[in-house]
């Protein structure tokens, strides 16, 4: 009589019971189906990391027509709200005060240079205290110059290319819409919530309500018990994933360049560590309140902060980077973004799936060890 054996009738009975409990518990349904919708809309619409209408300063140190024209190009840009000054001094003050995000300096000899057919570089100063915003500000400020230069060139009937051409292209997300990478991240958050937070409650609930004791006094095996917890939440998470995918592609117009099969395979792989972690927490704490706190701290927050979802891992301190290697979402989110934005790049996806399965195996082993069939501590 091995602990790994499973009696199909008992397993079915337990899964049915678990399913009935899920259906009768409005909060579970809400988290599984309401939360995805809420989070997707939150990340899809409300939180926007794009710099739309950023306030910048333009120091117009030249009176030439070209300089004026460039300045007005900035003023008409949909991305910027411009504070125009003659010198940089007042703008520096505003930058320090945080009233503007960057300064574009159009130097004195800009017009002369333009007349001679080449342009001296304009200077772009950005507020580096917010690296993300600074990146966007510089990128868009350059973009404006380029567009302007191209228009000028056309107007002048020049066929020859401008002497220096900066060519900036963003692959996979050409318009740099942040929701393109936020939406797959939000999906990861949703799956983590269902996989880890909901399951962290289920075994603890049985302990708290005294049903665990009664169940352990039946012929039930712990393998059956754990399986009965995994199956329903696995299906619930897949349903949620399907809902998220439909929302992402239909409502937020995020492309799905990879195949549904790759998406399914990756999701299944990620559910292993997510479910395993939740069940392990539940079995080890035996208390719903503690379990939910631990699940938030060890599952939800790392997925949020240490997965590269909101903050770039490359710009974290080395020791925090080291920690990110044990956050399963670190492997899941880039792979998920790849499937959505790039396609089935198996050389990226397969290693991720491998890591996730390995994490899953570790968590399930821990979980088995934590759920002994005994009331002894």
């Amino acid at each position: 009589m091995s602990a790994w054996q499973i009696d199909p009738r008992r397993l079915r009975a337990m899964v049915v019971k678990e399913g009935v409990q899920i259906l009768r518990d409005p909060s579970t349904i809400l988290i599984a189906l309401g939360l995805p919708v809420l989070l997707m809309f939150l990340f899809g619409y409300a939180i926007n990391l794009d710099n739309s209408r950023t306030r910048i300063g333009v120091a117009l140190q030249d009176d030439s027509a070209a300089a004026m024209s460039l300045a007005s190009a900035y003023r008409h840009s949909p991305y910027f709200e411009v504070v125009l000054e003659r010198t940089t001094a007042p703008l520096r003050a505003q930058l320090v005060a945080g009233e503007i995000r960057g300064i574009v300096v159009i130097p004195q000899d800009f017009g002369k240079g333009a007349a001679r057919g080449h342009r001296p570089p304009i200077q772009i100063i950005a507020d580096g205290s917010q690296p993300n915003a600074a990146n966007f500000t510089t990128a868009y400020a350059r973009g404006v110059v380029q567009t302007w230069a191209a228009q000028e060139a056309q107007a002048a009937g020049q066929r020859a290319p401008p002497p220096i051409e900066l060519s900036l292209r963003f692959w996979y997300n050409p318009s740099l819409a942040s929701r393109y990478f936020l939406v797959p991240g939000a999906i990861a958050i949703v799956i983590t919530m269902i996989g880890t937070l909901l399951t962290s409650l289920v075994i603890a609930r049985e302990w708290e309500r005294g049903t665990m004791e009664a169940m352990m006094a039946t012929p039930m095996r712990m393998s059956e018990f754990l399986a009965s917890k995994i199956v329903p939440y696995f299906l619930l998470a897949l349903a949620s994933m399907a809902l998220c995918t439909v929302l992402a592609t239909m409502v937020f117009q995020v492309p799905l360049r990879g195949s549904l099969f790759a998406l399914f395979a990756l999701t299944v792989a990620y559910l292993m560590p997510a479910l395993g972690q939740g069940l392990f927490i539940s079995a080890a704490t035996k208390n719903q309140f503690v379990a939910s706190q631990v699940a938030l701290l060890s599952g939800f927050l790392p997925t949020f902060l240490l997965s590269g979802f909101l903050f770039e891992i490359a710009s974290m301190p080395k020791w925090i980077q080291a920690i990110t290697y044990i956050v399963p979402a670190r492997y899941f989110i880039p792979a998920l973004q790849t499937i959505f934005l790039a396609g089935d790049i198996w050389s990226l996806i397969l290693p991720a799936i491998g890591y996730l399965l390995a994490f899953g195996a570790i968590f399930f082993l821990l979980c088995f060890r934590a759920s002994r069939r005994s009331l002894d501590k």
Partner: protein
Amino acid sequence: MGDAVAIATGVVKRFAGLAAPALDGVSMTIGTGGVTGLVGPDGAGKTTLIRILAGLMAADAGEIEVLGQAPGEDLADLGYMPQRFGLYEDLSVEQNLTLYADMRALPDDEREATFARLLAFTDLERFRSRMAGKLSGGMKQKLGLACALVKRPRLLLLDEPGVGVDPISRRELWAMVQELTADEHYGGMGVLWSTAYLDEAEKCDQVYLLNEGKLLFEGDPAELTGSVADRVVRLTGFEQRRRRLLTDMLDREGVIDGTIQGRSLRLLLDRPDRLVGESGFQLAPAAPRFEDGFIERLGGGPKGTSRLAEAYRTVAGDGGKAIVAKGLTKTFGDFTAASNVSFEVPYGTIFGLLGPNGAGKSTTFKMLCGLLTPSHGEGAVAGHDLRTSGGKARAALGYMAQKFSLYGDLSVAQNLDFFAGAYGLGRAGAREAIERVTEVFELGDVLKVNAGTLPLGFKQRLALAAAVMHEPPVLFLDEPTSGVDPVTRREFWTHINGLVEKGVAVLVTTHFMEEAEYCDEITLIYRSQQIASGTPDDLKRQAAGMDGLDDPTMEDTFIAMIEASDARREAEDAAA
């Protein structure tokens, strides 16, 4: 008793952090064809022993054989009902049964017949599709039993099935289990029934009496009861106040134990002729009880004088009423939790609020504590109107809750400090009060111990100590002694009796009938109505008239009154 289905020899179980073992060399045999009682107060080790038999805990020493194997091996033939019934509250009655049937592999073709039989037996057929969480305590208990019986077990372990349910449900369940042992379908089943109610012990075929992990008695309960047979007497026709006389009697040599029974006293003596020939009262033999034997085995009850009461101030009261309830009514939406409850409690008396769970006792109690605002009616505690000066009313009362309501992770000293502060004692007053209760309740040795790890008897003392530190004129007790051992319970009532003699007024809610006997007056609340009021003797007389019972106990009385109320209501419903 028939063949042995479970044999335990010399079982020892220790828990980390506790000095005394939970089980200290306990041996028992459970036979078929009868009910084996596992009897003892809370914390005696009953649950631990049952869990070991069910294979849920490992014993540290001793040999255990269940159904011929090591415990936990043959779970298919084991029926186990844990203290909290083990029901899924968000599943219906039928879904719970189905789950347990599948878990125990009940053949599909037997399912319908089995369910029909169990639902008829437990009278739950009408509630087949009701959520288990929406059943009353008594019905949950029956469903728990049905789930444990679904596969015709050879050994049925019932862990305190009577706890937390009212006497009627308790009796019904007992009758059902009794019926099972005689039923041919369940023939050959061994039943272990654990309980803290000593009156249930008398009805078992065989009893194991457990106290602090040690076996005090094993065998036929009649044997233990018989050992005190001619030494239990009833004292009537005395002039003194009964509490005064009880104190005097308990302080005398040769009186092992004594309780108040309405207007009379019930004493356990060391010799049958101990009080013969004395004047001032009439002496009559009384029926011995299992509890008398238990108390004697524990070395007798406490002496009669309460040191707490000796040190307590005298409550004058000035002839006023300590507690007044006038037409107290509480409605929640269209549900009436308490309807038109009225009574008065003079100083120096004990008033009992009796009723099954959910009858409206707690609601009434909470209104008088100022925790709930009455929808109608008014009330006053120690002369303070609950509506206008609820805070003052609360300051005038000491409150002791049923379950241990002290801070388990604070030490005894910290708990006392906290309650002294909470009751607004000043620095000097607090120090004086803490010293007093520490001495009276002998808490000196445990002051630094965390309250949560104390033995139950100490917790009980600490809870009372915290409630009386500020010497309130009014005491509220919510099932104060359910589950504690009889000696601790005597000790508790000795203090209460002493305080009442000092003029303190006591309001006690209980469905524990022994506590009711100590009351001067009782009101019985059922379905939010007061269905009967009077002294314990009055009520017993009324019940004797209803049921034709000869010398009914308080519990008989309670049940007769509730049944009469049900009959009246049904008759009214039928007429309408």
